[in-house]
């Protein structure tokens, strides 16, 4: 791999993290009123729990040394956050630090995210390609295009509708959680099936919301590939239709889709946060929801930083994998 390309991506990853950490610092410091006081006030207005509010404010002031010059505050904040991964203390679970509270939720979020994103990406791109392929039967095409408007509906709206339909009216799936409460924690087959059973509805909300997006963008990508001479050549050689479709058309058309995936990650993660809340799925989104309800300021900040860092990391990984998929890119320097 081109060293300059690698370096460029690494630099932009670090810049993204630094910029967002700085943004968080500015937001907590320069807003017109004390963010913790504000949050407490508003949470009280929406009827949420605000236990231990006074200690929270006192600790906040002490911890950030608000009497020190702003530059000193900034540097100590950045070194705590970036070098030590110190996000402060959770107030709901005091004196537990923020990191373990979030870390316990990460496997659930990551699992749900990876499975549904990859499934939606593969299925959406295949369906999108099929919709443009001449030998696809017409009815199938209409079904595929009917998926497109579904992607306009937000994740949490789809989640509410699916929940009502498939867990309340027809109780096929559980109404929430990630596993049956009180079950044993061993890794037996029954347990795995239980976890899958609980993940179907949250996963389906994400997949349905994403499918149409991939169908539409793959349609655009296929339109560009369809005119290429290598397809004509493959046909002239008498290759089977399926082979031309998979090896020649889809493979080439899906390359720009990987870039689109990188651009879309943030949206998916934000959407998943809300889906987790609706299904009480014990991931990072649910941690955030509880933190907002209890005005657990540092946990909120920690979850937000976690989302930013993981999206930046995933983008970096995709950017580094991309030249392996498309060898042309490493010869291009400058903008890729």
């Amino acid at each position, binding site marked *: 791999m081109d060293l300059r390309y690698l370096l460029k991506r690494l630099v*932009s990853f670090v*810049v*993204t993290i630094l*910029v*967002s950490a700085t*943004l*968080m610092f500015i*937001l*907590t410091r320069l*807003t*017109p*009123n004390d*963010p913790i*006081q*504000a*949050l407490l*006030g*508003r*949470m009280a*207005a*929406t009827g*949420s729990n605000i236990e231990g509010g006074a200690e929270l404010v006192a600790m906040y002031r002490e911890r950030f040394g608000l009497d020190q010059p702003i530059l000193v505050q900034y540097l100590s904040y950045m070194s705590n956050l970036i070098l030590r991964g110190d996000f402060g203390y959770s107030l709901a679970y005091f004196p537990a630090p923020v990191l373990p509270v979030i870390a316990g939720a990460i496997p659930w979020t990551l699992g749900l995210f990876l499975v549904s994103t990859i499934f939606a990406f593969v299925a959406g791109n295949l369906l999108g390609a099929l919709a443009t392929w001449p030998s696809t039967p017409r009815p199938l095409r209409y079904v595929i295009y009917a998926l497109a*408007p579904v*992607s*306009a*509906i*937000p994740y*949490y*709206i789809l989640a*509410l*509708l699916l*929940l*009502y339909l498939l867990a*309340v009216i027809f109780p096929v799936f559980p*109404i929430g959680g990630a596993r049956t409460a009180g079950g044993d924690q061993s890794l037996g087959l029954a347990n795995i099936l239980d976890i899958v059973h609980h993940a179907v509805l949250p996963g389906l909300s994400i997949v349905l919301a994403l499918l149409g997006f991939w169908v539409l963008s793959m*349609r*655009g990508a296929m*339109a560009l590939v369809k005119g290429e001479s290598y397809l004509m050549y493959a046909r002239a050689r008498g290759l089977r239709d399926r082979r031309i479709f998979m090896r020649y058309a889809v493979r080439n058309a899906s390359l720009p889709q990987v870039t689109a995936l990188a*651009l879309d990650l*943030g*949206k998916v*993660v*934000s959407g998943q*946060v*809300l889906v987790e*809340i*609706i299904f009480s799925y014990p991931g990072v989104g649910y941690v*955030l*929801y509880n933190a*907002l*309800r209890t005005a657990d*300021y540092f946990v*909120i*900040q920690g979850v*937000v930083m976690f*989302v*930013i860092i993981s*999206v*930046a990391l995933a*983008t970096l990984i995709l950017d580094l994998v991309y030249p392996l998929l498309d060898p042309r890119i490493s010869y291009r320097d400058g903008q890729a």
Partner: protein
Amino acid sequence: MIGNLAFRVWRALTYSVPLTIGCLLLAAVVIPSVLSPLFYDLGLARIASSGLNLPPSWEHPLGTQSEGRDVLALILAGTPATLIIGLIGGGIGVLVGTFLGMVSGYFGGRLDTAIRNTVDVGMTIPPFAILIMIAASFKVVTLPLMGAAVAISAWMYPTRVIRSQVLSIRTRGYVRMAKLSGIGDLRIIFGELLPNLIPLITAGAVNAIAVSILASIGLEVLGLGGQNLTLGTTIYFAIYYASMWRGLWWWWLPPVLVLVAIFLGLFLVSTALDEVANPKLRRASS
């Protein structure tokens, strides 16, 4: 040019079924909620103005919820509020995006590099994450404040699209001719570039409105909507009071359906406008 555009829009109206359906969906949501003060008592949206948890009846067509608010009044008052947030957020997003995109594309150089890199870094930071921090930092979240905040998620895409379009227009004959004849940059921007960008800006605006509404509802579902009566806060309280498990479908389902209509309407309109603004797309799909 304007005549040509009007003709193209008219033709799109008559032959684009999605656009027509999208406009109808939006009209079905907007018109009743705008005219509602004439035929419905919106005071019923106040706490304890009605009985608790009443199912739909003649008196309360969509029933009431657990705080004693009439659900129909909540919807009729909440829809305009949600749309206003969308218009403010989308409006700011498109204005900022158009300005930055034009400056970046037209002047190029260091300014362009700076704007392009800002957008690139900005696009990797999920706007929703930043919005949570912003919304959590204000004591009172008014409608305009919410609109201005969600604009953060709506300016980057227009900036990109406008910039790349300006890059291509800038090299065309009539712009070069205008430059050679010594016309000032401002007049070129407003006289030559802007008129050509109008279809693209319109399509971008519809998209930006949808993005803004999406972000605001997301924040409200998290409980960060403050005291505003919007569709999002209605859903938040419906979830908070577990309306779904208690069989109070008339509470959570109506705001959900109105939002589905709004998002489908905006999606259909923006897809159709995209095709008007971008004739290449039309050819690719046929």
